[in-house]
């Protein structure tokens, strides 16, 4: 497969870009933030996106979705990254939809996937517990109780956690923190008895929550996949999320970069355009190359996911690690080259810096993924 967009993918990109840049430029995020919007995104816009087929982009056609692949999801994520549009696309349409589609039984799929496709169900994965992303360290306990389980523990950085209709909770049914064996995914109703949700206002003004489960009862039908054997399902779902976030970071990096290069061509100091200074030209050129390389690595990862999720881990690790370092560099250079203006809230560039910081932590940062690659290569 060539590492260029097909005609259909280019058309998808154009329609996503048209809608998103029109309805949700950075000012959209700014006004949601300033208004302390209780939902954290525009429901109206989400319904239009659902009508266009974005909500169910990865959902098979038999469940009302578009049945497209991860490359296509990446195309949309990249456009989201350009304007920082807050939407349930990542948590619901990419991560949760993939978890249900890959791990769900027939009943679970037919109950939830059509609702994801039509935009009426918001779902999210609850995975992180400590300060850093460490899936195998999951210690939220699920103990057998009667016909089902009782769940107790806490999760952080649950995207859209305060508005979700369905949690997919990673829990430990056996073994100790750090072990692959004994992980199980559960479908949990956020309204169930014993669930406490705290919306956390985050640096990037995107949705997240901390949730606490205190003896939350779920029945046996709530298990997604197999009891104790959830690690493989989780790996795949997380890799899909990582590929998508890497694509968001590519879009974000490129947008910051374009804005910064524009600034270099307009800002004058010492009687010259600052873009004439070689010190800045070379830094801009290096950043351009970094972004191009990261874009290629991200496309490669998305292609690998489309080919076989189970074999994509190394490509995904490369992409997410590169996306993290590249976006971090892009936003830092962006603020620095904008000088004092870059420090003002009035200028959009700071929004990109804040979102990049969150994306870097999401599903593992550059250090985490670099470590994963080293382990995979056996040194």
């Amino acid at each position, binding site marked *: 497969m060539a590492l260029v967009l097909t005609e259909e993918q280019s058309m998808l990109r154009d329609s996503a870009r048209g809608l998103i840049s029109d309805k949700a430029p950075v000012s959209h995020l700014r006004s949601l933030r300033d208004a302390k919007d209780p939902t954290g995104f525009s429901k109206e816009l989400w319904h239009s996106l659902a009508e266009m087929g974005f909500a169910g982009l990865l959902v098979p056609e038999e469940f009302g979705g578009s049945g497209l692949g991860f490359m296509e999801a990446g195309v949309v994520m990249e456009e989201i990254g350009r304007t920082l549009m807050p939407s349930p696309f990542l948590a619901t349409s990419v991560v949760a939809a993939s978890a249900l589609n890959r791990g769900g039984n027939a009943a679970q799929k037919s109950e939830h996937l059509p609702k994801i496709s039509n935009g009426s169900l918001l779902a999210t994965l609850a995975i992180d517990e400590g300060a850093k992303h460490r899936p195998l360290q999951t210690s939220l306990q699920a103990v057998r109780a009667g016909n089902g389980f009782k769940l107790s523990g806490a999760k952080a950085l649950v995207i859209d956690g305060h508005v979700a209709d369905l949690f997919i909770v990673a829990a430990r049914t056996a073994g100790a923190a750090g072990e692959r064996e004994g992980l199980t995914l559960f479908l949990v109703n956020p309204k169930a008895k014993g669930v406490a949700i705290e919306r956390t206002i985050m640096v990037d003004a995107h949705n997240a929550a901390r949730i606490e489960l205190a003896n939350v009862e779920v029945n046996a039908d709530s298990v997604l996949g197999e009891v104790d054997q959830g690690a493989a399902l989780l790996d795949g779902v997380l890799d899909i999320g990582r590929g998508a976030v890497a694509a968001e970071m590519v879009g974000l990096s490129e947008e910051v970069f374009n804005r910064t290069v524009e600034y270099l061509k307009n800002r004058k100091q010492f009687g010259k355009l600052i873009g004439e200074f070689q010190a800045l030209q070379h830094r801009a050129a290096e950043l351009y190359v970094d972004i191009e390389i990261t874009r290629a690595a991200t496309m490669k990862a998305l292609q690998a996911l489309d080919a076989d999720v189970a074999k994509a881990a190394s490509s995904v690790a490369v992409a997410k690690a590169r996306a993290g370092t590249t976006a971090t560099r892009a936003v830092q250079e962006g603020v620095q080259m904008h000088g004092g203006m870059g420090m003002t809230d009035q200028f959009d560039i700071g929004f990109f810096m804040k979102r990049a910081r969150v994306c870097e932590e999401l599903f593992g940062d550059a250090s985490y993924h670099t470590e994963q690659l080293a382990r995979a*290569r056996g040194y």
Partner: protein
Amino acid sequence: MSESEAADLEQFREQTRAWLEANCPPEMRKPVTSDTDVFWGGRNTKFASEPQRIWFERMRDKGWTVPDWPREYGGGGLSAAEHKVLRAEMAKMGARPPLSSFGIWMLGPALLKYGNEAQKKEHLPKIAAGLIRWCQGYSEPNAGSDLASLQTRAESDGDDFVITGSKIWTSYANYADWIFCLVRTDPTAKKHDGISFILFDMASKGVTTKPILLISGYSPFCETFFDGVRVPKSHVVGTVNRGWDVAKYLLQHERAMISGMGERGVGRPLGQIAADSVGTDAQGKLDDSMLRGRIASFDVDEAALAACAERAVDLAKAGQAHPAFSSAMKYYGTELNKRRHEILMSAGGVNALEWESERSRQGARPRAWLRTKANSIEGGTTEVMLGIVAKRILDLPGA
């Protein structure tokens, strides 16, 4: 791609794999570790081994020393997609290139684009068949990064040009049969406008070469002197005084070649080379956590660059490539290759410091390390590459 095209390509892949399997000697499936493992061709060439000869001749007979050149010029006539398949299949079995030469990487593409029919017929088949080895006369003592300020003169004398001047960093000039050379044909014009691209025999009267000893202890480059060398005007490629166009086009190919240099030595992964040398802890992790981190970061960047190189080819095929993108790849590829060799030196420790012993294969590792320092200088320095990206791709103002 239509279904029938995809099926044809799949069939080509099967046939190619079977042919390579049957025809590539096992000795030619091992990583290239020394200069004698590379076959350069030329009038005075010798094969380092019988398998090297067999492999070269079989590939030559299929036109696969230059798989994507037209058949009429000794090439294999493969489409871009077929060429990609062939490269992938060769990479899969670790097959060495049957023939390496500046004729293949640099002059050939320039002749295909700018040469006249007589020049193509004369020179391309000899490149494909490894009969003539070429060198490149570009840099001069006072024209390095500022290549267009070159001063080697070519004065008109009837049907000939008479060439006087000197070149430097002429790779393997002492082994080369012919040279493709930039000369000043109009000293009064602006510096880019008075240059011609000309071909001549290194055996011509008035040509001398002198190898330059480098920090690696090797002499891959020469100083090359021209003292009234007489060359027919018909040997100019493209238009007289428009040689800069040819030069730039060729440089794009040169830069693509240099950026790919690091990928050539694909042998054992760095992490394993380091583990053998430094040792591992109880969990099997490299027993030097900082070095391990450097290697892992390198591996991330190397894998990402490989994806970018693949994408660059795909973009070119789709007609979406920026002509200056080879400068971006050249900058990153060469800096990365320097990083690789810094890591190899760290991993080798004391053992990588030996210069002359049998044990160290005559200091192969430190010499290779020192050789890579030229990567970010030759073919345009990193700083020149970044300047090209800034101006031609980003359209930043000035100079």
